[in-house]
């Protein structure tokens, strides 16, 4: 897990973000046991924002989010997450896109 995180962090380090501190645009709804869809985000999220806690729950730190919407589509049927665009002007800022 830690090597995965190191690899993705190195990639995201190149990107520019304007983080809306204290107002995450994606949240995981409270759960006892994550659904298969929610668990799959740990590997499928291209920014590695999702991780599994020691208690076996899925959590998100959306700071490196590229706003692609993958997690939104994966969890659309299960309703495990709340997904919004960041407020205008916040979030990822592509230099090249």
């Amino acid at each position: 897990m830690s090597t995965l995180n190191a690899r993705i962090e190195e990639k995201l380090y190149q990107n520019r973000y304007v983080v809306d501190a204290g107002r995450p645009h994606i949240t995981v709804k409270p759960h006892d046991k994550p659904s298969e869809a929610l668990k799959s985000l740990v590997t499928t999220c291209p920014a590695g924002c999702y991780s599994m806690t020691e208690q076996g729950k899925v959590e998100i730190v959306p700071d490196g989010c590229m706003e692609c919407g993958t997690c939104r589509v994966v969890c659309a049927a299960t309703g495990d997450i709340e997904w919004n665009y960041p407020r205008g002007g916040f979030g990822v800022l592509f230099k090249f896109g």
Partner: protein
Amino acid sequence: MGTIEERFDAIVVGAGPSGNAAAYTMAKNGLKVLQIERGEYPGSKNVQGAILYADALERIIPDFREDAPLERHVVEQRIWMMDDTSHTGMHYRSDDFNEEKPNRYTIIRAQFDRWFSSKVREAGAIVLCETTVTELLKDRNGKVIGVLTDRHGGPVLADVVVLAEGVNGLIGQRAGLREELHPRTVALAVKEMHFLPQEVIEQRFNISGDSGVVIEAMGTITKGMTGTGFLYTNRESISIGIGCVIEDFTRTGQTPYGLLDKFKSHPSVAPLIAGAEVKEYAAHLIPEGGYKAMPSIYGNGWVVTGDAAHLVNAVHREGSNLAMTSGRIAGETITYLKRRREPCDFDHLGEYRKRLEESFVLKDMRKYQKIPDFLHGQRHFLDLYPRLISKAAQTWLRVDGKAKREKEGEIMKTLRKQRGLAGLVADGVRFARAWR
């Protein structure tokens, strides 16, 4: 922030290729247009490979070549079928592509979209950035009459709203205008920007001046998932990326960045990007469900364009041209209705769909409507065949004292063993049916 009291002829949500095409077309024709973009500047939220198809833009801004930020015009297309150590290529290169008005260019979207947006402003539209549209407003009869945003307290009103909001299209979905996307009909692509000196790129790809090369790759690089890789030459950088259907990622547990790193380290790819400085990593969704996954594209007071309308021709790697064309046609339709003093209601906006049907956009979408289901049911197409072709090529080319007839026999035996004669024939028939 105060409220916007003015009433507009049209509000355009989003400043990508389709939104810019729509806003430009309407503003140029004298309509009062407000365009709303959530990014700090147009392009700051947008991601593409990226290839610009000149024809679609030329029909909107004929002299775009004079000042648009273009990288290289494409003179060579390589299609690579890859296994873990090899690629079998089909290359097409032609000096005919070195024409006065080239047909395809590589571009960098953040720069290109900014340029396109400057043209929209020059044409007279108001472009409001750093503003996220939060809701569509409807009147008592269900007609869309405007939007709410996160920057202005009150509603912003218009006769029609053009939803050029991109693949995620939250506004339209939340207003119940279309269904949520399905993990099977959307691909997730990741890409990196690799910077190298111009002359190094030109040496490595055998190009000079403004000419460029495009590589599209398929095979074991996607590890049995439905998807493709790509590599495009820009002036001083290389865009390299890979994408697969979302459902395949969740099913296999493959990570998108792991897949990209593997593709980059493939022996056919690694020397092309060796020594480059990576300056950005991006991810984006591509609506690849084809014609059958398309939502309603017009209604009472609204039209949908581009990715939000699922207008992507995955077979030909075309999307931005369908986006620009649908945006232009939406803009022309609204202009036409305004001039005739007709309302932008459900009945009259049907004209947008009609015009889109007559253009290449919906003709091409219809032509390939069976391809997404075909690929979903035939995952081996992108994995088995590239491997078989590679093995056949190696058997054929390796000189090892075996008689040629023996080699031919070996190749046929491998084909039969891996897929069976009946399987080969069935694959051919299914593919032909889906393609037709």
